[in-house]
Every structure is written in C-alpha cells, then in structure tokens.
C-alpha cells in the first residue's frame, strides 16, 4: 500500500474489490497491482488487482466488498430482529426486545400515517429499508484504513466497506422500489389504469383527436417523472454517503494519524446524516408507494 500522492490514496480507497469478466487482450496485473506485460488470451472471470483490469470490465462485474457487506449487514438486521421477534410477547418486554419494538413501532406509525391503503408488504419493507440502510451507512464510522488495511494484509488490493458509497447498491435498491411502484400502481388501478395514468395526464382534452395527439407528450413527461423517483432516491443516498466518505478519506490522506481531529467531529455530525438518510429513503419509499396505490 504505497501511495505517492493523496490523489492516488483517495482513488485507491474509493475502488471496489471487483470480480468480473475481462475481454481478451486485457493486460494482466500481479497481486501488487503491477503490470506483468502479458495479456489475457481470451475473456476470463478474475478479481481485478489494478485499474487496467477494472477499466476493461464491462457490465458483468460484481463488487464483492459492497455485496458482501450489504449481505452481511442485512443478515445481521434479520438475525437481530428475528431473535427479538422470537422473544416478543404481550407481557412486559426486556431491554433488548423493547429497543427493537421501539423501532418497529416507530416505522409502523410512519407507515400508518402516510400509507392509507392495505398492504402486508409495505411496513416490513419500510422496516427493512430503514434498518438495512442505517447499518450500511453506519459502517463508514469505522476509520477508513482499518478494514482496507486488514484486507490488504490478507492479499486483497481493493476493499471498500461502505455499501452505500457504491451507486450500484443504492440505485439497485431504488430501482427495486420503482418495480414496486409499478406493481402497486397496477394492483390499485389495473394495467389500463396505469397506462392511462402515463398517457392521459397531465394534459388532457375532451376532444378525442387532441387527446391522441397529446399522448406522446404526456408519456414523455410521465415516464420522466416516474424514472426521476428512483434515480433521485438512489442518487441522494449515494451522494450524501459518498461526500461524507470522501471527507474521511481526504482527512486520512492529508493528515495521517492526525485525521482524528477532523474525522471525529465529522463522524459525530455523520451520526445525524446516517440516520437522516436512512429515514429519508424509507419515508420516500412509503410516499411513492402510497401515491402509486391511490386512485385519481
């Protein structure tokens, strides 16, 4: 882990551990990120160890660190809540169960206030999003060199632990929300209702010819509005987390061990951001789904 410049350090810390398919002709790197001078004879699945390999990878690449940590944290969430759910009964709750119940009650009241339809899915969905995103954001409070350092010692060149600093993760979740929006819309209004919502609004006319002429315009506008929801949802979370992480890495790159003077207050401030962003992601999901299942 030799970094000549802060730029290199930052770039290194923002690179994911990637397992992907490189096409033939990609230069081969050794485990220390040095070019060996050889090239791959045919397309191969590899764990990238240098930027040349990373850049050669196309769509078929997985960020192992992001997926691993998000899976681990999601499983942690399910495990902790499942343990609480097993112990939960109508009597007086103990401290741990009480804490979990407080979160559940909080999410439940948010859902009840915002979503007026009937759905068995939306409340657990909101709880999962809130807790999972919160946990994924919280990982950034671990000092930036601890886990990548350990990973490097194990022989992994790149290791980025905060899943929400990866736009793939946040946008993946928000596009899942888009699918749910479409699903809720169709369930509430039927396929015809959903299509007419996309094509006959916001401009409408009583004249049938004018109505048909307005369809493409409406479609463009409504599709843009529909797509803007998940894109803004995912990018908001990613942007906030990326900016926060960037400051941590910058402090580490420029100040070495003295980063704590900047990192500590920034981490305290980020306790707020982490919770707030998790809450916003959950809240907007509920709002979008509630809008989708309302009849106009």
């Amino acid at each position, binding site marked *: 882990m030799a970094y000549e410049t802060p730029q290199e350090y930052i770039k290194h810390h*923002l690179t*994911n551990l*990637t397992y*992907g398919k490189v096409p033939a002709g990609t230069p081969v790197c050794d485990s220390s990120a040095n070019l060996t001078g050889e090239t791959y004879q045919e397309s191969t699945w590899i764990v990238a160890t240098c930027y040349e390999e990373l850049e050669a*990878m*196309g*769509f*078929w*690449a*997985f*960020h192992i660190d*992001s*997926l691993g940590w*998000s*899976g681990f944290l*999601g*499983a942690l*969430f*399910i495990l902790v*809540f*499942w343990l*609480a*759910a*097993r112990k*939960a*009964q*109508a*009597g007086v709750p103990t401290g741990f169960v009480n804490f*979990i*119940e407080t979160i*559940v*009650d909080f999410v*439940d009241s948010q859902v009840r206030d915002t979503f007026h339809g009937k759905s*068995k*899915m939306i*409340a*657990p*969905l909101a*709880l*999962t999003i809130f807790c*999972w995103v919160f946990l994924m954001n919280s990982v950034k409070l671990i000092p930036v060199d601890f886990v990548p350092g350990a990973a490097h010692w194990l022989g992994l060149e790149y290791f980025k632990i905060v*899943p929400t600093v*990866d*736009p*793939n*993760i946040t*946008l*993946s*979740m928000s*596009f*899942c929300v888009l699918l749910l929006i479409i699903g809720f819309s169709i369930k509430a209004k039927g396929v015809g209702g959903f299509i007419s919502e996309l094509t006959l609004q916001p401009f409408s006319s009583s004249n049938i010819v004018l109505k048909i002429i307005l369809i493409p315009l409406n479609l463009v506008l409504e599709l843009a509005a529909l797509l803007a929801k998940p894109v803004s949802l995912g990018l908001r979370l990613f942007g906030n987390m990326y900016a926060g992480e960037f400051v941590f890495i910058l402090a580490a790159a420029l100040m070495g061990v003295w980063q704590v003077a900047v990192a500590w207050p920034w981490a305290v401030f980020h306790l707020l951001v982490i919770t707030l962003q998790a809450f916003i992601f959950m809240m907007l999901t509920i709002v979008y789904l509630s809008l989708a299942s309302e009849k106009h």
Partner: protein
Amino acid sequence: MSMNATLLGQAIWFALFVLFCMKLVWPPLVKALEERKQKIAEGLNAADRAERDLEQAQQKVSENLTEAKAKAAEIIEQANKRASQILEEAKVHARTEGERLIAKAQGEIEQEINQAREQLRKEVSVLALSGAEKVLGAEVNRDAHKQLLEQLAAEL
C-alpha cells in the same frame, strides 16, 4: 464507479431480506405489540369496572349500615318499653301484695285481741267471785249468781 452486475446482486439481497422481514420478523413483533395494546386496554377497562364495583359496594354498605342502625334503635325502643311495662307491673303487684299482707296481719291482731279479751272476761268473773267470797266470808253460789257474773263479764 461503473454501473455493473452488482445491481443485480443487490436486488437479490433486497428481495431476500424484505421477504425474510415479511415472513419472520414483522408478523410476530406486530402481533406482540397488538396483543399488548389489547391487554392494556382490557386492564384499564377492568380497573374502571373495579372502581365502579367498589363504589356500588360502598353504597350498599352504607345502606345496610343505616338500615341496621334503624333496626337497632327500634329494638332498643321496644326493649325500653317492655322494661317500663314490667316495672309497672311489678310495682302494682308489690302494692297489692303489701296490702294483702297488711290486711292479714291486722286480722290476726284483732283475733288475738278478741281471744285475750275473752280470756280476761273469764278470769275477771273468777276473780270477782273469789273477791266477793273473801269480802263476804262465805261461799257464794256460783249458780245463784251466774246471771250477775255474766252481766259483769259482759261489761268488761
């Protein structure tokens, strides 16, 4: 920072965790919360009911108490009445008994007096006769003067 198949991986995680949450986590927790809400509502209801019952019981107790007091007063009054009646009867009885005893005693006294008088009469006639004998120095014929003696005795 390229977009890649991580999207798909995360989508699978997402679906999986939401499903787990829906099946394993949410129902028991919400059920527990609902049950507790119901239990608390029932408890509050029971408390209300108990309070009402207590009020009713207290009312009944005070009613019973008043009734008992009234009954006690009645009984005491009756007893007093009866006592004075008994006293009155006793007084009357004592008076009549006393009068009877007095009358009886008086009868006895009179009889005694009469007896004494009778005896005295007899003794007087004997005494008079013997006195007269002494005065006359001779025997007096009792039968001859019987009438005179009887007259004397009757005058006593």
